[in-house]
Each structure stands twice: as C-alpha cells, then as structure tokens.
C-alpha cells in the first residue's frame, strides 16, 4: 500500500489552472462603487440579491439629520435584538447630535465599518453584517451583528478525558479562538486570518506563539493553506488532506483535536493550530508519530501512572498491529516455534474449524470492524443491541458451531481492546487498517513476512515528514532531550524545555521549579 506512492509522486505546485466559473457573483460587483442616491442603490441591491427571501430591507428616516436611509440584513444570520435595540432605536428615536460630521452614525454597536464598494457590501451582508445606506452618501456603514443558531459548549465526544477541562470546540471559529485565548492571555499569541475557497470563503485562523514557534514552519503552513483552490472547506478533515505532506500514507500527519486544553498545550510547545470556521475540530501541526500517543490526561495524573499508561499504549499498538498476524504465522507457518503442549491445545480448538487461519482471522476481524462501525452511528439504546448480538453470536455461538476457534476469539478480542487504547481516533483507524496487510503477509511468509511488514512500516515512518519535521522524530533522528516526554512522562518540573521536534525557537518553557531539600 505504500509503494503505490511512487506512481503518484506528489508535486505540490499551486494549481495554475483557474476555474472559469468560479464565483460568478463577484464579477458583477468587482470594483463598482456605490451610488450616492439611495433609491438606485436599493435597486441595484435588489438586482444582486434575487431569489433571496431572507434579505430584509428596512427603510427609515434618521432622527438627527432627517436623512432617508435603509437598513439591510439577512434574517437568521443576524442577531435581531442587536438590530432592534442598538441600531434601529438610536437611529430613529434618539436625538443626540453626533453624525453631522458624517463619520459614523450614532449606534450602540461595537464593530462598525465603512464600505464604498459593492463587493464589500455584498460580502458583509452574506457574512451576517447589517448594512446601512444613507441617501446622499456614496458609501455604506457595516455593523457587526453576526448571530446565527449555535449549540452550547459541550464535553468533547471523541476525546473524553478524566481530569481535563470539559469544554469542547464549537462550530463558530471566533468562539474557538476565544476558548484558546482564555488559556493564553498573552500578546505573543498571534492569529493570522486567511480565507479559503472561492465560493465559501471559509475563514481560517492560524494560531501560534510568535516568539516560540518557528517562522519557517509558519511560512510553509501559510503557503500551503493559501495555495488551496476549492469551492469551500466544510470540515477541518478536508483541509488536512489538502495540506498534509504525504496524502498516500495511512498515518495521520496532522493532529485533529476537539479539546481546547490540548490545543493550548500544543501551542505552548511551539506548534501551530489552525481553527476552521464551521468545524468543531482544530488542526495542529507539525505532528510526530509519538504525539498521537499522548493525551492531555497524561499531564494531570501522577507521573508514574501516566508513564505506565503511556507504555501500555505502545504495547497496545504492537498488539493491535501484530497479534492476529503472529497468530496466523504460528498456526499456519512456523508452528515449530510453539512448544508441543501449547501447539496441541491450539490445534485442538481448531479441529472443527474448516477455514484456513487467514480466512478465519479475516472473518473475525471484519466482523469486529463492522460491529465497531455500526456501533458508532447508532443511537445509544440500539447500540447496546449490537454489543449483545456481537458478544453472544460471535463470541459463543460461532465457536460452538465450529466456525472459529476459541483462540481466535481471544486474539480478536485482545486486538479490539488494544486498539481502543490509542487516544487518537485517526491513529486508531490507521492501526485498524494496517492490521489487514500484516495478516496477509504473515499468511504468505510467516514470521519473515511480519518482519518484512514491520520493516516496510518503519521505512515508511522514517520517510514521513509533517510540515518539514521528521515524523518519527524523537526516535529517528534520536533526540535524547525529548525522551523525557515520549515513552514515559517524567515529573512536570523536569520538562523544562519545549520538545525539539516542534522546532521551537525559544526552547525554555519553565524555570527550576523543583522544591528541594527539607522545607521545615
């Protein structure tokens, strides 16, 4: 599966072929100025927004100056109470002498802008701003009244944590930024805004610590983001496929998280996070293989326990990847490796099974994958049924019917449990997929096949890079300093420096916090 990469040698050059039909509406408005006559402006507006029943045009007379005006906004994209109380009321009722000079009308809205181009007005309305046209003025005022249906902050669903914060990201980009900024109220926290997609113009923010993160990685990330030429980005997962280094790899090369606290901890380590408007997951780069085995809980449990759990995860990785393959190779190829007693008991449980080991293992593994996949999208009460059906039918009856052996059920169950331990969903799925080629190669070549499979896997891991950072980083190239937080997690006060694999320019992140000696 890796070697087909050679047929698709990736060349990341910007897409020079421009799509002809892209964004037809902007053609009509590009570079056109607003008229100073209100009626003709409104006519033009009606022409631009045909078949838009949710466009509200409210004509009014500004109380102070007596000028005819019109307020335009999209129903549903705007916050009604803001418009009613903070724009309409002051404009129509209050008599403060304020905008004689003609700068900004007297309203109670925080963010007010001006636009004299139709394209500006159009984007503003579409993004949920309210636009005020006044008669005799060749410009419009843009009030920030964005407000659309949102859900409230909830516990993250995929990355649950025991002791971490119970706030997950939302679908609104600005709120996600706020969730991040709450942890780092520092002016070095820089946010670069980009917009991706010709039609959707999805807003995307790169968030990083300016004095910590490596500028070269930033430039790389920015150039990759800005070279994307698509209609729209719906989800962060889509964006990841456009910018990752090696799209043909089964391994995730960029972390997707829905936890603000782990995002912040990554930013503090010198990584970059990208918030995508409209998606509840945030992207973190550069990532290393090891970083998919770290969870935010590791830092809030006692370090010995955290280290133990981390080692457990690596063990689980090996089991989930190799156990079915080892079973197959020991049963069908290298049976001389097992002592005779063990071999007999295995053979005894397989006497009734009519299938060759590979087919037996495939059958069980695919059933398991199906059960898992069906369980994800079922509502909770039905999901239990799947468990019962799976447990009883697969576990008990299949063995009694002689379709699979007892040992196979044990193998499949332990691989299932092992693959659930991986804290990152994407890495877990990569693992689930890789198990199958491993099984096939083990069936064909036995232990040697497994070793060759591992060699291919390691070769692939060694070649991978994430935003120019070696993917296998603290291991190859080996970095002794990063070992403090790789297989084990040493006490927090030992983690004085940021990890080297983030290429942080400012490496020290903590002072000497160890309490030493007797404190009386």
């Amino acid at each position, binding site marked *: 599966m890796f070697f087909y990469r050679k047929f698709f040698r990736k060349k990341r050059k910007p897409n020079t072929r421009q799509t002809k039909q892209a964004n037809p509406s902007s053609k009509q408005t590009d570079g056109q100025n607003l008229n100073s006559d209100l009626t003709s402006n409104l006519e033009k507006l009606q022409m631009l927004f045909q078949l838009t029943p949710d466009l509200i045009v409210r004509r009014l007379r500004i109380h102070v100056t007596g000028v005819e005006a019109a307020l335009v906004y999209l129903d549903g994209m705007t916050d009604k109470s803001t418009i009613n109380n903070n724009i309409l009321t002051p404009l129509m009722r209050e008599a403060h002498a304020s905008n004689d000079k003609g700068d900004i009308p007297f309203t109670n809205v925080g963010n007010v802008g001006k636009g004299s181009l139709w394209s500006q007005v159009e984007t503003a309305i579409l993004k949920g701003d309210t636009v005020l046209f006044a008669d005799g003025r060749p410009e419009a005022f843009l009030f920030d009244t964005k407000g659309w249906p949102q859900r409230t902050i909830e516990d993250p669903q995929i990355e649950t944590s025991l002791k971490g914060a119970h706030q997950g990201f939302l679908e609104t980009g600005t709120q996600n930024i706020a969730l991040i900024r709450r942890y780092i109220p520092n002016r070095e926290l820089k946010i670069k805004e980009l917009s991706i997609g010709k039609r959707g113009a999805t807003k995307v923010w790169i968030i990083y610590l300016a004095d910590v993160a490596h500028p070269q990685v930033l430039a790389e990330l920015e150039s990759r983001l800005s070279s994307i030429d698509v209609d729209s980005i719906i989800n962060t997962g889509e964006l990841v496929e456009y910018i990752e280094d090696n799209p043909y790899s089964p391994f995730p090369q960029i972390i997707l998280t829905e936890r603000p606290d782990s995002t912040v901890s990554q930013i503090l380590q010198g990584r970059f996070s990208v918030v995508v408007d409209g998606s509840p997951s945030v992207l973190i780069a550069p990532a290393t293989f090891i970083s998919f085995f770290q969870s935010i809980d590791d830092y809030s449990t006692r370090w010995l326990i955290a280290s133990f759990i981390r080692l457990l995860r690596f063990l689980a990785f090996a089991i989930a990847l190799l156990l079915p393959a080892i079973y197959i190779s020991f049963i069908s190829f290298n049976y001389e490796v097992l002592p005779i007693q063990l071999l007999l008991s295995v053979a005894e449980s397989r006497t009734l099974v009519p299938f060759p080991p590979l087919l037996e293992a495939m059958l069980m593994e695919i059933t398991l994958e199906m059960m898992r996949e069906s369980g994800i999208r079922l509502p909770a009460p039905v999901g239990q049924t799947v468990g019962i059906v799976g447990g009883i039918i697969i576990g008990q009856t299949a063995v009694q019917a002689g379709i699979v052996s007892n040992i196979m059920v044990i193998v499949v169950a332990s691989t299932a449990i092992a693959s659930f331990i991986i804290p990152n969903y994407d890495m877990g799925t990569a693992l689930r997929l890789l198990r199958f080629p491993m099984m096939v190669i083990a069936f064909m070549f036995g*232990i040697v096949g497994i070793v060759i499979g591992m060699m291919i896997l390691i070769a692939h891991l060694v070649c991978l890079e994430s935003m120019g950072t070696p993917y296998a980083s603290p291991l*190859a190239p080996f970095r002794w300093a990063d070992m403090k937080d790789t297989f084990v997690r040493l006490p927090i006060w030992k983690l004085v420096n940021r990890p080297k694999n983030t290429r942080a320019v400012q490496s020290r992140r903590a002072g000497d916090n160890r309490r030493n000696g007797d404190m009386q």
Partner: protein
Amino acid sequence: MKKYALNEITFMQFIFLIHGIQVGTGIMSLPKDLAEKSGTDGWMSLIIGWFINIIASYVMIQIFKRFPNDTLYDLLNRLFGKWLSLFISIPVTLYFICAVWLILIRAMLYIKAWFLPQTPDYIVVFLFTIPTFMLARNGLRIMGRYCELVFYLTAWMPFILLLVLGDSHWIHLLPLFKEGMMPVVKGLESTIYSIAGLEITMIVYPFLKNKQSAMLGIVIANSITILAYIYVTIICFAFFSPDEITGYNQPLLSLLKVIEFRFLERFDMIFLAIYLFIVSTSWIPYMFFAAFSVSQLMRKQDHTPYVAVLLVLIIAIVFVIHPSWNQADMWSKRVSIYNIGITFVLPLLLWVYIQFYVRVHKGELH
C-alpha cells in the same frame, strides 16, 4: 558551495550508519571462520582488525579534510578530470553493487534455509526489495534515521545471548596465544569481510553536519561493531568446545537453538527473523550508495531510477542463476579482497597523490 546541505546527517546517525553497514550476515559464521583459522585465539584478530580500520579511516579523513564538500566522486573529478576519474569511480561503483548483491543473497539464503525452504529465491529477494526501494530512493538523511532507529530497536538482542552463559566453559578460551601470534594474524583474513563498511566514509563525509568529530564517530562505530563481534565470538567459543565449533556452519544460530522458554520453543527462529532488521541496515545503505554512485557516473542528480533499475536487475539475476551457498561463499571471498582494495589501498594511493597535488596546485584549492 554546499550541495549536500539538504541531506546533512548528525553525528549519531553517522555512527549508526557505519555500524549498521558493518554488521550484516557475517556475524553468523564469524566464530566458525575464526576458529578454523586461528583456534580459540580468533577473537584477538578482531582487535587487530579494529586497529587497521582505525588507521584506514584516519587516512580517509586526512584526504577529505582538505576537500570538505567533496564526495569521492567529486574529488576524483577534481583530481583526474571528468574522464580519467572513471578508471577509479567505475570500480568503486561496481564494488557497492557487488556488496548489495552479496548481502542480499546471503540474507536470502539464510531466510530460505531457515524459514521459507519452499519459496522461490527471487520471491524472497523481492520481499527485501520493497523496504529497500522505499528507503534507498530517499536521501542519505533517511538512511541515517533508519539505521539509528533500527539500532535502538534491536539493542536488546545481544543480551539474549547471556542466557546461555550458564552452560559455558571459560576454560575453552585458555591458554591465550597457544600457538603464537601467527594464527591471530591469519584470522584477519576472515574478519575483513565482517568489518567492511568503512569505505562509505569517503562518500558520507561531505554530508556530515559535524565534520570535526568525524574521526571520533568512526572510532565509536568501529568499536561498537568490534565489541559486538568479540562478544559473540567469545560466547560461542566458551559455549562450544574448540573442536566442536568448526563443525557448525553458523555457530551463532546453533547457540541460539539452545535457548528455550516454556511458551516458546524455537527462540532462534524469532531471533533470526528480527536479525533481518540488522542485516537490512547493511544492504539498504549499500543500495543507496550503489544507486548514488551510478547517478554520479551518469552525472545525474536524482538517483531514484537507478535504485529501481538495480533492484530489478538483482531480482532478474537471482531468477536466472539461483545462487547457492557455495557460490555466495566464493563471492564473499572475492568481495573481501575487492574491499581491501577500496578501503585500504585506494585511500592510501589517493593520499599520496594528494600530497603531490597540493604541492603543485598551491592556492588554487578553494
């Protein structure tokens, strides 16, 4: 001009690259070869081999110190011109190709003999070529990373041998120098094949990030290798009696056969399978150097197509001639003579030539 800056390798990667290349299939039969030539004093010839290697690498470093941005091929071009240099660079390229060939064949023979007697040999070689192609088509930096990672992943393996110490008799090693110095020197012949790999310094040197410590790196890499060999040899000598050991073709594997757990009967199979990782750090870098050399001869920048071509050629030749153990032994004798030429004679001649060259071209060097 630093045209290799993109692929700089670290000090540690340099060490493990050399060490990885040196330790290959040789270790399996080394104790027997040594015992045949020099009896139980054989391990001492390893120390002499270590010393000779250090001297050779010192000469290489002395040459390339003056031309820190040159690989061997750049240097030859500089010294002898575009066409004359081919008289040396073609044999060097051929040497690398022979080295890949030999290691791949030996690894294939081991795997075929112990695991896959029914599988055709070209299929086994094809299996090896997949990771080889994936790695060797990349730069030297990837080789360094791979060798480094594999070293750490397999560092536990020597300790397994300690399990047999209970059945060993150290008396087998005594007396030292029982037949004088001559057997020890004789044993050198069979060590040369096992400690080959130093010659890559002549190509790796411009890729080194830290050129001052190149010598130190070579010494460390050599020491690790030789220590591993001495360790294995001494354990084998202590375990088998001096007469018995020459009866085994691969004493190391026979020794491992003794190790047994209640849940695992043939631990030697697993050991040998995992040992394939260590062998791979020998043939994969050699493959890289072979393809790199060919690309240098062809005066091309990208060496990826040559990796593919060489691998396909190797599979094709295996398919046609079906190499046997005897052939492999014969070839390895020839390659070790070839290796002496490349590792020891060539640097010495170059060094002498450069002494004159520098005198003549004073001031034009940089």
